[in-house]
Each structure stands twice: as C-alpha cells, then as structure tokens.
C-alpha cells in the first residue's frame, strides 16, 4: 500500500470530491436544517431560540391542504409520464440503433432551451386565443375557446412536458437490458402476451419505473415557476410555498422545514428503490 502522499493525483481528486461534498452539499443542507429549528426574525430572517414551531406550522390544515393538492398534481404528472413514457421507452428499445440515437437526441434537444422559456411557449399554445384553441376552432371541433390556461390541467401539462424525459431515460435503460430470452421463455412455458407482460416484463422493468417515479414525482412538487406561469393562484406546489416563504413572506424557518419534508420524501423513495433493486438482483443470469 502506498500512502496518499506518494500518490498526489489520487490525493488531489479525493480532496476535491470531499471538499465539494462538504462545502456545497453538506453545509447548505445543515444550514437548512439549522434554519428550520430557529425562530423567525423580521430583521435578520432567523434568530434564537431553537424551536419546532416551523414544523408545527406544517401541520396547519391550510398548508396540509396545499401539500396534499401539490402531491396530487405531482402524482398525476408522474402517472401521465409513466403512461406515455413506458410504451415510448419500450418502442425506443425496439427500433434500430440508428433511429435510437436520433430519437434520444430529439428527446434531449429541448434541454438546450431554458425551461422557463419553454413554459412561456406552452402558455402561448394553451391561452384562450392560443394556438390550440384557434386550431381546434378553425377545424370546427369546438365552437368557442376552452379555458385551458390557469387550470390544474395546465399545470399538469406543463409538468409532464418538462419532466417526461426523466421518466423515459431510466425506463429506456431497463428495456435495453431486458433480454428477449426472458420473453421467449415465458412464451415457451405457456404464457400469452398479457401474462408475460404482467408476470415477467413489469417485474423486470420495475427498477426503471421506480427510478422514473423518483426523478419525476419530487421535482414535480418543486417546479414553482410552472404554476406561476400556467396555474393561477389556486394550483400551488410545495415549491411555490417554499419560494414564497423565502422571498415574499420572509419566513425562513418555515420554508426550510418544508424543504426538509421534501428531502425526507426523496430519501424514502430512494430507499424503496434500493430495496426493489436488491430483490431483482444486479445481473440476473
């Protein structure tokens, strides 16, 4: 064994990584935890004494309702992403290699444009005199414009639009690894298509489903600008609450406590994902 002093590159990399984690991940999170147990102060934002008031406030029926509504919209977003993403990823794994590269490229292209700008673009489409309403009216499908903007549906459309790639990519990766022999074996042992889907394909792709849910569900609760632009005042996300506490209401302890709630939810999902992965095994010969 050579010591770190004899391996300067290795030492430098380790210092860099640990330094990064310490100053940019651990410290900010500890500050958030710290802020969440302090008292609100109009002058310097936070002050002593330590208190759990912020967490108590989370249980306020008003905020509980915001949380539940936010969770509901995020869950709907996740469900829609899953319903679109699952067959899409499956098809993606089936097309030829060249088309695959093209399709994944197309999936990634929107990331080159700021998501705020894309959300404003969506507003133009969904507006009362927007592309969608005008298009449908000129086709004679509808007589007058529909109220699309500033509805719960608009928020979910916006979230799905922004988050769908995060559902597709992990699903695509599990479908890529899904060996055709498993499906043949199932067929050979007497299973029809539906049976094979339920008993073989779904369990084998479950890690991808869970990864997709993780990547969509929690970010969906945090993307505050989507309700800001598309949702009107009643369709708030937890992200809006957090943003408002820090920027408008100046209640840092409460904003921090809400953040921690989201972080804990994320940790719980990751834990569930790990469990399922262990069950399914790394290789599965």
């Amino acid at each position, binding site marked *: 064994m050579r010591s770190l002093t004899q391996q300067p590159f290795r030492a430098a990399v380790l210092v860099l990584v640990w330094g990064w984690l310490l100053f940019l991940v651990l410290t900010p999170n500890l500050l958030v935890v710290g802020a969440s147990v302090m008292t609100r102060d109009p002058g310097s934002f936070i002050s002593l004494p330590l208190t759990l008031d912020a967490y108590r406030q989370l249980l306020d029926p008003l905020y509980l309702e915001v949380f539940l509504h936010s969770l509901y919209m995020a869950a709907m977003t996740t469900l829609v992403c899953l319903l679109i993403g699952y067959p899409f990823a499956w098809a993606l794994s089936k097309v030829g290699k060249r088309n695959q590269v093209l399709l994944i490229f197309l999936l990634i292209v929107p990331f080159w444009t700021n998501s705020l700008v894309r959300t404003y673009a969506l507003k133009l489409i969904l507006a009362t005199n927007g592309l969608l309403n005008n298009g449908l009216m000129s086709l004679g499908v509808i007589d007058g414009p529909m109220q699309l903007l500033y509805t719960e549906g608009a928020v979910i459309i916006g979230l799905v639009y922004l988050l769908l790639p995060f559902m597709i990519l992990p699903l695509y990766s599990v479908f890529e690894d899904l060996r055709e022999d498993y499906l043949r074996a*199932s*067929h050979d042992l*007497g299973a029809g298509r539906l049976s094979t889907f339920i008993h073989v394909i779904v369990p084998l792709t479950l890690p991808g489903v869970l990864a997709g849910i993780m990547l969509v569900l929690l970010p969906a609760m945090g993307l505050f600008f989507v309700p800001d632009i598309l949702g009107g005042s009643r369709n708030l996300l937890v992200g809006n609450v957090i943003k408002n506490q820090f920027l408008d209401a100046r209640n840092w302890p409460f904003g921090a406590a809400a953040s921690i709630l989201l972080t804990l939810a994320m940790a719980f999902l990751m834990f569930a994902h790990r469990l399922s992965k262990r069950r399914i095994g790394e290789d599965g010969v």
Partner: protein
Amino acid sequence: MATESDLSCSGLVRRFGNNAAVDHVSLDVPAGTFFSILGPSGCGKTTLLRLLAGFDKPDEGDIFIRGHRMNEVPPNKRPVNMVFQHLALFPTMSVGDNIGYGLKRKKVPAAERRKRIARVLEQVGLPELENRDPQELSGGQRQRVALARCLVLEPTLLLLDEPLGALDLKLREQMKIELKHLQKQFGTTFVYITHDQSEAMVMSDQVAVMKNGRFEQVAPPEELYRQPATPFVAGFVGDNNRLAGTVVSVADDVAAVRLSDGAVVRGRVASAGLAPGAQAELYIRPESLSFSQTAAGGGSSSLQTRVRTTLFDGANSRVEAESNGQALFARLPQDGTAPALTPDGHLELSWDPDLARVFGASPQ
C-alpha cells in the same frame, strides 16, 4: 404419420434474403431419443431450433409433433419446451416460482403445483431449494433448475440450445453425463443443439451433423465416427488426419491414392464415383495408425514420416509426425508398446486400409 415419431419434419426451409439458413431439412426423432444437432456456428442449427420451438416460421415444409402439424401453432400452445443458452431463469422469482410458472399458466391448482415442484426438484437432485433465488445457485444448479422448469410440464419434446456453453470445463464434463442420465430417467425426447462434438457424441442416441443449412449425416455417434458419410463429417467429428492426392486405382472397394510426393496410400472407398485420375482425400484416425515395427505387414498401407514432437497427455498422448510438409497425428499408447521416439527421427506409420476412408475431393 403411422410411425411413433415424437418429432418429424419434412423439407424445412427458412430463408433470410437469398440465404437459406435451413435448407430442405427432414428429420425423424423416435420417442425417448436423445437427438443432437451438431454443427459449426452459422450452420443454421439455431434457426432450426427456433422453428421447432415456434419462435419462427418455416418458409417451406412441415413440422409434426406426435403426428400433429405444428406450423401455425404458437410457442405457448406447443407441447415443446426449451432450455435457453443462458437459461433465462426469471431473476424476479424464486426457484419454486420459476418452476411453477408454466404450471400456473396451465391453471394447475396451488396444492398440486407445490407437489409437482417438490417432486421435480427431487428428481433433478435439488430437493428443498424452492425458496432460493436463482442468483444464489451455482452454475450447475441453475442448469438443473432450467431443466426442471421445462420437465415439470411433461413436454413431448425438450429443446436444448447449447446450455452447457457457459459452464467451465470440469462442470461441463459432469453435466454431460448428468444430462444423459436425466434424459433416460424422464424418458422425454431431447433435441440438443451444440457445436461441441464431444457433447453430442457422449450424450446422444442419434446425431445430425449440419453444415450450410443441410444435414450432412444422421447416425448414432459410433457410426458417425467410424463411417463418416462426407469429408466434412470425417473432419468435424473427432480427430482425423487428412491426406490429399490423386486416385490411381480402385479394386474391391479399396482405393489407392498417390500423394504429391509419389507415395501411394490406400483406404476404403467412402463416396461414389471414385475413378482413377480423380482428386481424392484419405482420412485416417490417429488411433488407427500403428508404428511399423509392431504392425503386421500383409495388405497394410504405410507412409514414411519424420517425427516432429511428442505431445504427452495421459491416455490422449500423441506423436506429431510430418510427411512431405503434411502434419500427421498418431496415438501414442501409454502401455509401454510405443517405440522410443526422437525428434527428427524416422517413423513409418501404417494402417489397415479398411480403417481409412477415401472421399472425392470436396470443393473447398
């Protein structure tokens, strides 16, 4: 279909573009037979197996299983099960659930299912492993679970797609013998495809040697070894020495072949239409060659060679000799009867012409 064939195919053809991967193959497998299809990679054996399993459809020809035409029957409705090359045990299910998978699809009640799973595990020598995950088992155990998963369904026909390929050498030798015993014990008809001639020879009742989509010869292993029907079979099955030359005379089914250095060697005629002047190949097995000091002279054929080296390998020890640039291998008995050999020393190899086979030269 009056005969008691479990599997019978006639004129099977499967084309990919202009290339026929399976080219007019007919075969007939009696019930309870261990039937192997042996061939180099790309010979069409995997395509043929896929046709039998129902994963692919033939362009021409028919497949009958116990007299029932199978061409339009999907894989899940055929009385056929398959052990895949990589086994394809479902990693999300326990051993018991893997084996019970097919029974469940057949709606066998749970109590009956448990009984049959326990029984088949006992039969393959893995009692009480129901609750383990396939990933926890050794390679040989997984192999047997894959077999049990098929055999529990009591198929008419079990297809095996080179399942021993992934095992290490020692385990493979062991599994060969075990597979043969299991086949006899269950009495199920096995169709086994492999590129490993030793696997095919050790386990099979009948072996079909396949090349370029066609069967070159279908015979029991011993016949395949002693009376290969084509030069390809002679070269592919077992070790063989090949000597190329021109036919000088044919008498009493024995052909004399002149090699390029003028030496004349003799062997039994193995293909029709061998006439003086024709290009020919003589095949002689390493164990059929004897060293002239000990061989009885009368009617034998012989060749003068120079010793290159001896290859000691216990019972498989051989001497590598050379005649006119052509390497020849002869078995070196380890019972003290072999002469002392020195590199570059002279060695006369002789053989009984009845043990050598002469074919018209193959196009390649």
